[in-house]
């Protein structure tokens, strides 16, 4: 195995392009090194992107934020402005693994690992975040929702990697929330999860709503019908039940060691309801 530590995205792209065997990006390493230790991944090339200028920064951009691909989840939690604007995204990132793992793990790694249960991805999808992708043909921006392609798979082309995320600016009465279900209080992979991103109208009703579910389908899923169920409401009981039903209907989970189809489907609806109420309260709404 070859370990490289490029100083620029262009150099990283060149290294990936020239790789003669399986190549992997190393940001936080909390998935990659686990796989290497277990003998599941045996890359010929590992490209450590942490020394690339800007990739460890969170900066204001166009009223929103640009978050470098090597920014750790813990660093996101320590960024007061980001945590105030996008509390749901930050709480998703801060649920990944332990304190130790959060010190290293990145959203980019979480996304590119391709797990349908990735904790930071539903929030990004609900937020309408975009990823800046660097590859042999230069840079392109792509909605995060379009990157997952199934368990362990992404739509990134060979030689491409995520360099940063962009979270758009948002109006005053807006917020988000993320909840996941795990059997313990910490340290587990989500059995089901839900992120809700709301923008409220002046009168406190929901003007815009985006709902994304995790761990209930081969990829994180944006559920348009679930968002639609909330628009125009103040999260009254029937709106919440319509939300939960839309979420349950959108589920296509599997039975596995972490949960059953029945359990995941039911709990996805419960989590969406609860997350919607949290986001609504955060946005200044009162039920």
């Amino acid at each position: 195995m070859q370990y490289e530590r490029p100083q620029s995205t262009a150099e990283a792209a060149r290294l990936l392009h020239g790789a003669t065997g399986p190549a992997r990006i190393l940001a936080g390493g909390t998935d990659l090194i686990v796989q290497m230790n277990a003998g599941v991944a045996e890359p010929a090339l590992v490209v450590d992107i942490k020394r690339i200028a800007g990739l460890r920064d969170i900066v204001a951009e166009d009223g929103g934020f640009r978050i470098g691909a090597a920014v750790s989840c813990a660093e996101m939690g320590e960024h007061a402005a980001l945590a105030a604007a996008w509390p749901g995204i930050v709480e998703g990132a801060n649920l990944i693994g332990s304190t130790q793992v959060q010190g290293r793990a990145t959203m980019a790694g979480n996304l590119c690992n391709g797990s349908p249960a990735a904790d930071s991805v539903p929030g990004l999808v609900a937020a309408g975040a975009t990823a800046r992708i660097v590859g042999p043909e230069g840079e392109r921006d792509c909605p995060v929702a379009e990157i997952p392609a199934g368990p362990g798979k992404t739509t990134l082309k060979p030689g491409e990697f995520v360099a940063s995320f962009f979270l758009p600016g948002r109006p005053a009465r807006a917020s988000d929330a993320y909840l996941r279900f795990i059997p313990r209080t910490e340290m587990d992979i989500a059995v089901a999860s839900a992120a809700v991103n709301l923008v409220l109208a002046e009168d406190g009703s929901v003007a815009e709503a985006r709902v994304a579910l995790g761990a209930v389908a081969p990829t994180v899923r944006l559920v348009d019908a679930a968002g639609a169920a909330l628009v125009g409401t103040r999260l009254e009981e029937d709106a919440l039940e319509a939300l939960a039903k839309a979420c349950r209907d959108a589920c296509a989970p599997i039975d596995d060691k972490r949960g059953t189809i029945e359990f995941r489907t039911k709990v996805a609806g419960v989590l969406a309801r609860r997350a919607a109420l949290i986001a609504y309260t955060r946005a200044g709404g009162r039920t």
Partner: protein
Amino acid sequence: MTRQDKITRAFKQVGTRPPRPDGIDKVTGRAMYGADMTAPGMLWGKVLRSPHAHARIRSIDTSAAEALEGVKAVVTGADFTLPEDDFYRDVAVNCMAQDAALYDGHAVAAVAAVSEAVAKAALKLIKVEYEVLPHVIDVDAAMTTGAPVVQPGRAYENVPEGMSENVTSHCEFGHGDLAAGFAKADVIVERSFRTAATHQGYIEPHACLASMGGDGRADLWCCTQGQFHVREVCAEILGMESSQLRVTASEIGGGFGGKTTVFIEPVALALSRKAGRPVKIVMKRDEVFRATGPTVHSSIDVKIGMTRDGRITAGEAHLRYSGGAFPCGTVDMGAQSAFAAYDLDAVRTFGWNAMTNRPKEAAYRAPGAPQAIYAVESVVDELCQKLGLDPLDVRILNAARKGTKSAYGPTFDEIGLLATLEAAKAHPHYTAPLGPNQGRGLSCGFWFNFGGNTCVTMNLAFDGTVTITEGNPDIGGSRASISLMAAEELGIPYDKVRTIVADTASIGHNDITDGSRVTFSVGLAAIEAARDAIAKMCARVAKIWGIDPDAVEWKDGAVHPSGPNAGKFPPMTLAEIAATSPNTGGPIAGHYEVNADGAGVSFGVHLVDVEVDPETGATKVLRYTVFQDAGKAVHPDYVEGQMQGGAVQGIGWALNEEYIYGEDGRLQNPGFLDYRVPVASDLPEIETVILEIPNPGHPYGVRGVGETPIVPPLAAISNAVSRAAGVRLTELPMSPPRILKALSAQG
């Protein structure tokens, strides 16, 4: 052993909480555990494991691995001579498969190489030709006639004709007339239960460093609960003489019963013998889960009858346990302990062990008891609910006590069950208010406790300090407790005593650190060794004073004239006697060797409050209190530690821990990610109440405390969850999907 009638001694040091002697080493990273030792010229060993649940091994081709640069030795089953004795042969076959792989993870070959990386690469070059055979994972399936047979011809003579060949043993215990008992009942509840296999989950994987010379002499460093047992077993498997193998127990990073046997130690020795160099093997976590001891998994039917006023009239249990791919006697202990907490006229338990294609069971705290008592205590709780009776009152009414003919045969002597039940009843926890979706559960727990073979040597240095040499790895602070007991007996300060755990060449045989035996039996031997040293000191002083040995006595750490007639001499302290010992006959030592009996059974009661989320089935443990009889708590911090640690292991067993197998018979969760042991944020404070009902079989009244605490949590939590959820749970673990399913089923 002399039985103590009444222990009324006022202790000066026993019962205090001094710092443990290994504390500084363990907080500074200096303590040496299994994987921390290295040797010059050391090689790294790695084990190749079966990917199949059950397969015939047609052939193993190791030539390519042997040819790899840096590989110094390769071994397979052919390198081990199989002992004749069943017990040793099963251990040997478990360490290295012979003609068949019996479970996913079963060792089939091993290599030693100059680095871990080369060893790993070499494993990939070993070609094993398997013929995959049908497998069986579930105990009930294994007991069905026509099930795939794990090993033929392993049934004991006590197995009735016509059962599946996987059934290896049958047992039956109890007394009285069951039919008459049930006829007297106003209500009878009959339920079936299932419990998953769990793992001890020690944080330190198995590790060892073996060095064997051409002359057949060997040294072995390993993390184990019993270095003498390791020596006996390895000597047997490798055809060595015990005295030629010196085993040193490293500091041990948790065992809980799981380090009472060997897995990699004979393999490392065989590799070292072949390579002529030291070999270190350290298991990876997935190997620990796949190939080392889980508990049995079980399927249990319980039937209990009760009168309207809460008297149990009869109890019956059928226990089906599987200890994995080998015969296993754990069900015997389950069948004996199931009803141990009750005073019953009619009781009967029946046990069967059946082999499955799972790893060989290893002991885990009170092996066999948690499952059986979970099932019984669940049914008792349900009867209380049905009859509207207070579950603690019902336990008090039916509690076994001195004079009770126990369900497993003998009549109980002094036991602490009633006292613990009454302490629970008087505790504010029992009457604290509960909120919505909350429930309170309780359960009794029981364990036999053992003594066993024990040697202690006590040497007095010329400066008056004392070294105690004992042979039991310290897994819970026992060096502190033993030093305390010796200091108490000698009348010298705790910090003048140092207790060390010796290797197998430095002291006589000591049984494994198991059965909650160490504080009891090593403590007893240390006290007796101190008495031996005291007798010698008295004799020396009598000589110095020129009086009869009978005319001196030991008091408060010094020899005194025993009365005015003995003469007037200023007392001589231990330090003074030690300092003059070269002049009075040479160094002074005390020692004691015994196969200790009289450990005294142990009872505990746990109380727990939980809250169940009705929408997700998640259980939160809100409050937890442990009540247990410790006989005499020598170092109360570590008694509490045993009670808290055992309780939390039981909480994990009740709620989340389980071995999950796929259709292919492979273990699906061989890691701490999906084998979910409790984390700090899952738990409340674990409150402890120590009761001290002296054990007449120990000079200070000590009872073992280590195992009982894992027994009650299973039923206590299940009872609390069942009451909170309003539906009776009968399967462990009570994972959220299971609870939510039960809630949905009831509508």
